[in-house]
């Protein structure tokens, strides 16, 4: 791929590892979990405690929500950021949260450890530049109509601002299939690994939009070599203000984490046996 001066992989060069308050991205599996949206302090802190208990390494939660309808819940804004800050102080989990407005970038950076740029904003170049300048690690989701090359070029915008801390995240693309919310394109995991040195995460929650598919697709993503997962978990999904149908209960998330661990052991053993 042309013009990926900073994002493209170079022979012999090491893969990027990002240190976020002691959590190493790009070295072993890291799971980011938490509610779709920050709705209240109680909901966020309780969810944070539950996902940490289950083994999540970072907390996600939207304070600024890009919604399909202008009448849908738009997020708590600054108040939501303060709640995330509280959850971090209670659990020690670093915070991942989305930024949708260039004017919010520095403020979100004051509260969050990782700024997420959502699928709908992947090609919002002024937002990418501003996020690059913030110096904060960026989780860049793949746009729902974007090719790998377009996606990596967006990462290039951030790296070109001198910010090398970019995590890519596959979250499903629009295809003719309508049964699932999106078509989760797991082939992007080896594709990113061959074309770039940046870590690649997978979001099975948005990728499928179907509760029962989150676990199998998480296991598949990790088997394919994903550096991490981003999963929506809500302390009480039935009461959620957004994405009611794709947020896992803490118990289901804990079960998934246990299975991921067993799968990791199996895969490690498989490779170890081959080598010997």
């Amino acid at each position, binding site marked *: 791929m042309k013009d990926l001066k900073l994002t493209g992989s170079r022979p012999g060069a090491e893969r990027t590892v990002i240190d976020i308050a002691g959590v190493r991205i790009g070295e072993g599996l890291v799971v980011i979990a938490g509610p779709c949206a920050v709705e209240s302090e109680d909901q966020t802190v309780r969810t944070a405690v539950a996902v940490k208990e289950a083994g999540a390494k970072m907390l996600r939660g939207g304070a600024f929500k890009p919604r399909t309808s202008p009448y849908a819940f738009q997020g708590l804004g*600054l108040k939501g950021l303060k709640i995330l800050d509280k959850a971090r102080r209670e659990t020690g989990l670093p915070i991942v949260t989305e930024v949708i407005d260039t004017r*919010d970038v520095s403020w979100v950076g004051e509260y969050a450890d990782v700024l997420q740029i959502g699928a709908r904003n992947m090609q919002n170049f002024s937002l990418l530049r501003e996020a690059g300048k913030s110096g904060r690690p960026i989780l860049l989701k793949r746009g729902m109509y974007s090719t790998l090359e377009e996606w990596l070029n967006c990462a290039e915008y951030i790296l070109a601002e001198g910010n090398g801390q970019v995590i890519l995240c596959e979250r499903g693309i629009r295809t003719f299939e309508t049964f699932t919310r999106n078509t989760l394109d797991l082939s992007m995991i080896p594709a990113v690994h061959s074309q770039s040195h940046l870590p690649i995460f997978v979001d099975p929650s948005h990728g499928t939009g179907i509760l029962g598919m989150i676990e199998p697709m998480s296991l598949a993503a990790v088997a394919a070599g994903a550096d991490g997962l981003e999963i929506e978990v809500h302390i009480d999904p039935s009461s959620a203000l957004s994405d009611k149908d794709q947020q896992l209960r803490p118990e289901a998330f804990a079960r998934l984490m246990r299975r991921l661990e067993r799968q990791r052991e199996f895969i490690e053993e498989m490779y170890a046996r081959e080598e010997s």
Partner: protein
Amino acid sequence: MTLHDLYEDIDRIDARLLALLNERMERAVLVRAFPDGAEDAARHDDESVERARRTALCLAGPEFAAGVYRGLADECGRLRASELRTVAFQGDHGAYSEMAARAWDAQAAAIPFREFVDVFDAVQDGIVDFGIVPVENTLGGLVGPVNSILVYADLRIVAAVDMPVAHCLLAPPGADHREIRVAYSHTQALAQCRRFLARNKLEGRTEFDTAGAARRLAEERPAGAAAIASRFAAELYGLDIIKEDIQDAENNRTRFFVLARAPAAEAGSKCSAVFFTEDKAGALFRVLELFARSGINLTRIESVPNVPGDYAIFLDFEGSDRDPRVAAAIEEAKASAREFRLLGCYTERRL
């Protein structure tokens, strides 16, 4: 105009009313310091009641107004007769100095003065019992004017308070944080949040005090403006906290001195002194050597420019002048240095 607008106005007016009442009561208490002040003030308060009775306002009519002022006058009279101790501080209510004053003595009335020199004068002239001033900060360094005034002020240090300082960015309620372009505060606070301001592209503008900036923001609500002050100031003036702990380093502490006309009653465990030295090799060393030989631990040494080429040296050390070993070292220092003056032996409180 909506119902919401009206309630907002009422809240704002209530906050100002309370602040003004408190300001008026402070002055009514300070008259104690003057000869015959208490009786004179009682007569003056009665006049205020009568003046209120002559009111021609439609809603706050004569009887109501007189009743309010009678209540106020009675409370002022009660305070004047009480054993209330007064502490002057620089700035406005909600200032870090006021927080330090309350930490030192929760019962005392902390009274704001505009400038540091006003605080020193108020103590010197007997208008207040004590004054509290910041001396040094871990990030901002020496609080310049205070140390320069301390060199010549004829006051004694009777206590010290070492307090963590956590700044907040404050905005008027409901203001959009994205619209903020300037932040008003004291120069020291702006210096302590320099990197935060740069990160968020905010222009720092100087106010005489952190809390004064918060108060002005609450009263005038200029567009696109914020203030840097304490959480205490945010509560006092009903401002929203945009971000807490915005100082550039975690260990942001300020040390305050409590000043009085007479030395502290108790022995204390720390001393402060100021002196000058001859302009020759080893002069400063010889003074410091005295303390080293006596095994007295120096906790601060600071030089403050006096006239060009001449420096006042501030020295803090552990111990009390009631300890003969310390007293002997002080006597020797007086003989060795020029104008060695013990500013006080006191207890330092660390919060």
